[in-house]
């Protein structure tokens, strides 16, 4: 009896949790003349692919998708490289200024993203990075570097220094220790960091909206939002595009969720 109640409660909560996803999905298969019809239907009366063909018929949609993929790939590679180097330095070396630099990193964890957007816009303008995918990548890396460094430093700190020193006695330089000892050991932590940074880049909105003007350089989030702004009732098309944007993320998450959960929980428990 009590167990039945437990499962009933969990199922109810799960229904509320996936409800909006089902609405998105079912609306994406609903023809334009039915999207504002009541009562809402889980299975559209006249299901249609037309919204999806409309989405892929939009001149630039494949382009937006590709932009999102390119920016995310550049971001993940660069932030993992720089973040793991910094994390390793903070975990295994003592040097003047360590407390100051680490304090800067910790402080940046607390600064809300949108707060810096005004001065960052001017810096990007001076560096000729407005309307540029490189501008997206570099600022994403800078924004997430503190978090990724913090995450990986925690992992590197748990690797005994003696392991590295043993390699050094055998004549290995610091770069080799990092490259062939630390990085392979850190694979699970790097996996966690990769998922976090992919999600960050794939979903980022405010910065891309601010610096990207050229329609050919839009990423998915701004393309979808701007499309909804212009066609306020074309919900079927909006949600078809949303589904295309969201599904890869959900698939990646479900496959790799173990890494993400482990990383999150480690971060939370270490505080």
């Amino acid at each position, binding site marked *: 009896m009590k167990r039945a109640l437990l499962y009933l409660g969990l199922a109810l909560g799960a229904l509320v949790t996936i409800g*909006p996803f089902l609405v998105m999905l079912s609306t994406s298969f609903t023809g334009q003349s039915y999207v504002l019809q009541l009562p809402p239907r889980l299975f559209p009366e006249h299901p249609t692919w037309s919204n999806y063909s409309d989405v892929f018929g939009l001149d630039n949609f494949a382009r937006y998708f590709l932009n999102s993929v390119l920016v995310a790939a550049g971001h993940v590679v660069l932030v993992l490289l720089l973040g793991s*180097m910094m994390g390793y330095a903070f975990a295994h070396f003592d040097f003047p200024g360590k407390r100051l630099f680490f304090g800067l990193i910790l402080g940046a964890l607390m600064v809300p993203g949108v707060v810096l957007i005004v001065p960052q816009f001017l810096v990007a303008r001076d560096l000729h990075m407005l309307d540029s995918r490189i501008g997206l990548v*570099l600022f994403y890396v800078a924004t997430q*570097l503190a978090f990724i460094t913090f995450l990986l430093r925690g992992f590197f700190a748990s690797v005994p220094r003696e392991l590295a020193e043993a390699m*050094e006695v055998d004549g290995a330089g610091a770069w080799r220790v990092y490259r062939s000892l630390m990085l392979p050991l850190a694979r699970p932590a790097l996996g966690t960091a990769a998922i976090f940074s992919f999600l960050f880049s794939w979903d980022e909105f405010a910065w891309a909206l601010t610096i990207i003007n050229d329609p050919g350089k839009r990423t998915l989030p701004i393309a979808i939002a701007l499309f909804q702004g212009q066609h306020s009732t074309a919900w079927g098309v909006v949600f078809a595009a949303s589904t295309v944007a969201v599904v890869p993320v959900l698939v990646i998450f479900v496959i790799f*969720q173990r890494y993400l959960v482990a990383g999150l929980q480690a971060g939370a428990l270490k505080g």
Partner: protein
Amino acid sequence: MTATMHDVRPVGTRPTGRARAARRRSAKQKTLTAYAFLLPGLALFVALMVWPMVQALRMSLYHWNILPGAVSEFIAGDNYSRALHDPVFWRGFVNSAAYALMTVPTQMALGLLVAVALNRKVAGRTGWRTLYYLPVVTSWVVVSLVFKYLFNTDAGAVNWLLGVHIDWLGNRWPALVALSALGVWKGVGWSMLVFLAALQQVPRSLLEAAEVDGAGPARRFWHVTLPQLRAAMAFVTVMLVIGGFNVFISVFLMTGGGPAHQTETLLSYLYNQAFTFLDFGYGSAIAYLVTMLIFGLSLVQMKLFRYGEEDQ
């Protein structure tokens, strides 16, 4: 002192001058190595994060002219006093605070409830956990649009389910309720995950001892489990309050801060001032006020929770 293999020497002998010099050299080399590892990342970080932060402070003291090379007028603290006398700024503050008040306790309570349920012997725990976490990893843009659709006045599922006809997004408080509903829906999975991790760390022996002493499930939860969750509670509260005051994308997409600035939050107002009205100086002043507010709130909470104190 760092104990490297080179340092090993028989106990009681004094280091010779040569050994000391070698160690100094090696320490110096280690410092250089560390800087080399830090440099690329730190350079980017300073150029694109720290420098803009400094730049924003300077801009906030000017009537900033955004044309490149144009002269800006120094007005000292005027942008700040303007904000403090600006009714829309205060409305934004109240809206952000109301959003935090509505979303933080709700997310924590629901997150804890689900975590406690999943901490029992449940079939398919990983499946449930994954499912409850899905909204957390889903794009803010997409879920904001889905909720905008759900809260549609004439054809929205929410009005239909409740049997009412409310213009949710066209009025201040109903809009804040709709925004908060989205915030809670998207956030519960995150606090669930943190609490679940903390629950799994509660020592079985403590719970068993309490049971032997005759404490029922409710008392065990209240007197044994809950105190063990203090660090997790502190972490979740601080992060959620920061997140609450950071609400932006959903506001931007669901109401745009309107109608007539009624639903503006601190960050949506900042963004509108800067990029709709192109008042970068004023936007930067608001940015600094928000940053100080968030830092202050976080510090107060950490003090209240005595976060970081060892007590286990």
